[in-house]
């Protein structure tokens, strides 16, 4: 840290390590790196560019605006960019012209895509709902969606690239049922004339754990950033490295109204620090753990110093990281604040400076 009072540090080596490890583990399935929400707070273009350099051929963008930002930022074909959160009010023509792959769940979305093509056919991934009940066609609506897509494919306005779903990670049994439903939907689509679609179903957890969930392609977000689920094996145990460190400098040291020594940092709830954190998690100063204490203010947090007399203004506080400076990991933060590490990283304010190492 130089002259800033707080910073996010992103370790691209950790990212590359995770991509290599996960790619080897899921092979022969391919990897899509999911970069939604500013790459889970790690920096959209840095993460996408690093992924492509590491050999990744698919980038998961979430929506069309993000996909177009990636194309403008230099993520060009042959790298595929996938957008699946489609706004009914949105013009899809720029996405199709930029060669963005679109996740399609309904006939109206399909018609919009087909009507928005100019020269090239719209590349589409048809989504089946296998239990999560967010988007995706129900089993009932599936044949109609596939048939209409086939008609449009024969007219040359769309190309059915893939069939996909997203699962609930509710339990192994529930996920197995989703896998069965997915296989049935793929079979039904083949029966309706869809040839050799790319099949994708799994996000991080299922891709890591289950070979029967990997199919041709897996969509990896959390694990790429070294963020394992809560209450389970640590990143290290899983061969992953947490890429993000959050640090701040001590801005005041004083005696609280109750007489106890405390230090403040310029990170508050408006910066994305969880209001459930004080009293439940420690941070590290000089390699030693100190508790985050109440109150969490809008733009600062307090750390209890107790007997620690050698903390002064300007000292570095590590809130989370890979543990190497004595700090807790994001998994431990998620467990302590009753959420998942993903919620903690995507809620960080973009006003916190980010440094890539």
């Amino acid at each position: 840290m130089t002259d800033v009072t707080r910073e996010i540090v992103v370790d691209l080596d950790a990212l590359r390590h995770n991509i290599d490890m996960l790619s080897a583990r899921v092979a022969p399935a391919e990897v899509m790196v999911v970069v939604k929400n500013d790459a889970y707070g790690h920096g959209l273009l840095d993460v996408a560019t690093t992924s492509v350099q590491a050999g990744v051929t698919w980038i998961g963008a979430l929506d069309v605006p993000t996909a177009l930002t990636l194309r403008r930022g230099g993520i060009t074909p042959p790298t595929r960019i996938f957008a699946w959160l489609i706004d009914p009010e949105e013009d899809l023509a720029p996405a199709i012209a930029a060669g963005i792959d679109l996740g399609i769940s309904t006939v109206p979305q399909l018609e919009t895509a087909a009507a928005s093509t100019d020269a090239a056919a719209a590349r589409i991934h048809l989504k089946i709902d296998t239990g999560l009940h967010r988007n995706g066609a129900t089993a009932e609506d599936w044949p109609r969606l596939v048939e209409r897509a086939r008609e449009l494919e024969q007219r040359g306005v769309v190309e059915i690239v893939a069939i996909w779903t997203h699962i609930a990670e509710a339990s192994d049994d529930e996920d197995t049922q989703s896998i069965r439903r997915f296989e049935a939907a793929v079979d039904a689509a083949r029966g309706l004339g869809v040839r050799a679609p790319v099949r994708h179903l799994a996000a991080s957890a299922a891709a890591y754990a289950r070979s029967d969930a990997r199919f041709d392609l897996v969509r990896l977000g959390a694990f790429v950033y070294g963020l394992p689920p809560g209450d389970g094996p640590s990143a290290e145990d899983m061969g992953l490295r947490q890429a993000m460190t959050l640090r701040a400098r001590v801005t005041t040291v004083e005696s609280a109204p109750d007489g106890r020594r405390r230090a403040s940092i310029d990170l508050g709830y408006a910066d994305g620090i969880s209001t459930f954190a004080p009293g439940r998690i420690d941070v590290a100063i000089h390699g030693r753990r100190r508790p985050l204490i109440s109150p969490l203010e809008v733009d600062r947090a307090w750390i209890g110093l107790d007997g620690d007399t050698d903390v002064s203004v300007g000292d570095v506080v590590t809130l989370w990281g890979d543990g190497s400076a004595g700090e807790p990991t994001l998994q431990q933060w998620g467990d302590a604040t009753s959420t998942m590490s993903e919620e903690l990283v995507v809620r960080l304010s973009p006003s916190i400076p980010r440094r890539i190492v």
Partner: protein
Amino acid sequence: MSGPHELHPAPPRRAVISLETVRSNTRLLLDQPSSGRVVADLRGDAYGHGAAAVATALDDLQLDAFLVSNETDAQAVDALALSTPSILRSRLVPDSTTLLGPQLFGLDSAELRDPRARGLLPALTLSARVLSVKTVGAGEGVSYGYVYRTPRATTLAMVCLGYSDGIDRHACDGGRAWFAGSTHPIAGRVAMDVFMLDVDDSPVSPGDEVVLFGDEQHGYPSPVAWAGALGKTGAEVTASLGDRIVRSYR
């Protein structure tokens, strides 16, 4: 491509802020006797309401200063060339200053639990678009972990706000949002970018609008009630809304 005569569609995630409400709340608070300096607390980008817009709207109300979080915000407010100066916390004299913060926006805080009882109204209405709808049978699990099961055959609307926008992942535990005249339960864990609303048999289509909180006079959940269900204050909720939510003013 959209032609020149087509209106740009409204953004899918919106926070509409009534500056008139902020002004009338401020006037009400200034009517109360206070000693010393009166400073408007616009930290955390005015608790998510936009410090520059709020400072401009309050400039003629004879406040002594605008308190902001950092140099960047101070520069943004100073660039407006207002008559009220911006200050940082280091220049605040606590004992002789009345600080008006969340209450300006009709929000609760540890100091003021029930702003409406004081006539202070919420200034921010948070809403988002329905992206898709689907009908499902009874007893179906919804969203990650299937923590919600449909109590009956119903319609689910997928709404484009998620925890990355500042809607807590556990807002399903009692959280309700307004659609078409009444409130409905959030069905299942809030995901990173969307949540599902169980609208029962209300007719709903992609493109419709769902309101998470706003002025309860319109039937919306109030920010105080919304935040309370999450174990938070309204100020904590609005200050941590994400920047994908497009702010506009009226």
